[in-house]
């Protein structure tokens, strides 16, 4: 019988990425229903130091593959190692971060072990109702109580679809970064470390990496940001982002954008929030001059607090806002930046 919820942990430059911890967190929730263990799969070179962290965030076991062939991410050695683990341990569920690495390697692994893969999921749960059991069974699932239901946006976020993988194992999904929640870190937690050996050969390195460049990132990645001030078409032009930046600066926030501004060349693509951009869930999302097209809302609706300013009182953004202000962003933003700075200064003096 297949068993275990396996999470393929993403590491970059030897550091475990948040998405892996989020997936361990989500797996501990699935475990409550599945009554099975959470296994973190860590691949890389000289990364054993990262193992404890995985236990601290909820892994019951860690399978470690440590090899110089895994130093930089290359599709084939990673595929080979993960496939070997999947074949050896026959997992019930296998999860990957839906990053540019996870979405490169997971399809190949799924194809090699001949199972299905659901892309870029935002919701996972075990089948629970009679209706769900019946549907799984009808599609050929042998034990519907162990069936995973995977939910993901489709058609540009207009539609959500829940998928199942009834007949083949593991049930595989890539999961969108920033959506799942990690559990509280517990440094007393520990678990079993399994060192897994894979026989790599030079032929596995079927591409040649000529250069590795880590981007010099000044700004915090939006998916990690706590506070975001975002601009849309209503800010009127590239110079409108000066107002956005000013408010962001006063707040200590990051700058986001709707797709329209990116398409118009007012701001870089990596600032784009939404279906074709990033999914964010900050404590504050301030939408300035953003109408709130469904594609945009898809990327920010899980924000804790949404404040929006828009000239048009029928703008759909107001429907997902905790506080909506009907007004001109160009007038309000400069005053807001001043007010925030004054407030902070006053608070510091008390």
């Amino acid at each position: 019988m297949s068993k275990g919820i396996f999470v393929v942990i993403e590491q970059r430059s030897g550091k475990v990425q948040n998405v892996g911890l989020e997936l361990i967190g989500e797996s501990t929730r699935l475990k409550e229903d599945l009554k099975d263990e959470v296994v973190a799969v860590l691949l890389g070179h000289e990364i054993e130091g990262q193992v404890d962290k995985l236990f601290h965030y909820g892994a019951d076991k860690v399978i470690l593959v440590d090899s110089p062939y895994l130093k930089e991410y290359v599709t084939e050695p990673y595929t080979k190692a993960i496939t070997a683990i999947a074949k050896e341990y026959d997992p019930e569920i296998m999860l990957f971060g839906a990053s540019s690495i996870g979405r490169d390697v997971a399809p190949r692994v799924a194809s090699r072990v001949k199972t299905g893969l659901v892309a870029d999921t935002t919701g996972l749960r075990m089948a629970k109702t009679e209706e769900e059991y019946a549907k799984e069974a009808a599609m050929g699932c042998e034990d519907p109580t162990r069936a995973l239901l995977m939910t993901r946006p489709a058609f540009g976020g207009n539609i959500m679809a829940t998928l199942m993988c009834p007949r083949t194992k593991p049930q595989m999904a890539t999961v969108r970064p920033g959506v799942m929640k990690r559990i509280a870190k517990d440094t007393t937690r520990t678990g079993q470390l399994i060192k897994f050996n894979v026989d790599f050969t030079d032929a596995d390195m079927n591409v040649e990496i000529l250069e590795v460049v880590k981007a010099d990132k000044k700004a915090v990645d939006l998916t990690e940001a706590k506070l975001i001030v975002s601009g849309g078409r209503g800010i009127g032009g590239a110079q409108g982002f000066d107002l956005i930046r000013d408010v962001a600066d006063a707040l200590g926030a990051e700058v986001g954008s709707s797709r329209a501004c990116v398409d118009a060349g007012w701001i870089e693509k990596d600032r784009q929030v939404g279906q074709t951009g990033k999914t964010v869930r900050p404590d504050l999302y301030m939408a300035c001059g953003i109408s709130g097209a469904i594609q945009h809302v898809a990327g920010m609706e899980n924000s804790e607090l949404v404040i929006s300013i828009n000239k048009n009182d029928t703008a759909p953004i107001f429907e997902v806002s905790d506080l909506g202000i009907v007004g001109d962003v160009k007038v309000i933003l400069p005053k807001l930046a001043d007010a925030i700075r004054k407030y902070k200064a006053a608070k510091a003096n008390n």
Partner: protein
Amino acid sequence: MKIVVCIKQVPDTVEVKIDPKTGTLIRDGVPSIINHDDKTGIEAALTLKEKIGGTVTVVSMGPPQADIALREALAMGCDEAYLVSAREFGGSDTYATSGILAAALDKIGYDVIITGRQAIDGDTAQVGPQIAEKLHLPQVSYVEELVDAGADYVTVKRQFEDGYHIVKVKTPCLLTAIAELAEPRYMSVGGVFEAYTKEIKTIGFEELKDGLELDMIGLKGSPTNVYKSFTKEMKGAGTVLNDLTPEQAVEAIVNKLEEKFII
């Protein structure tokens, strides 16, 4: 060099609307377009051909209506076009689709296969890598720049969230294109007329069946199935304040930030 581009015809999602009564997608009258990443792939293929010579073949799997997408690709300058189409292929998930396309590509022949990273209707980004897997090819996905190319290799810039790799890969190989890779050219007026003088070759079930896992195609053979689709629930609306002076608006925002301990 024989460059083959896989393209998908997708609804223009910007114009997709939900029927307020049934909550389903209104697809009638929604224009179909070549998926954007795939169109980028076409541009990259044409650029590659201009650089090192060869031919550009375009392949699409879909219903007969996908003809117009292939004609558009021809009108952009592609040399030949194939439509992979059969009733048996309908409802395929990414595993099944990649199996079918791999079998078709095996028949067509290739040195470099280019696919878009992902399609805007499904957003899976899986078919490219899974074709490569089926054909035992090295892949480079998330290609954002074509750096160099020669008779038996291509060198590309592979994007990551936190940087990039410059990767050299020997042909045959598969690349997946992202928007940054190229700005797709327009069709040309002359190209449109030429496109309709060319034959689009259809590859059906019979031609491919010997190369397929027959229990792994179509709706029934796909390892994943849709359990249900539903419209996304919108977050409940909060307070909307109208007719405030700018000062009152600022005060309302600051109060809210204070209330939620943001400042």
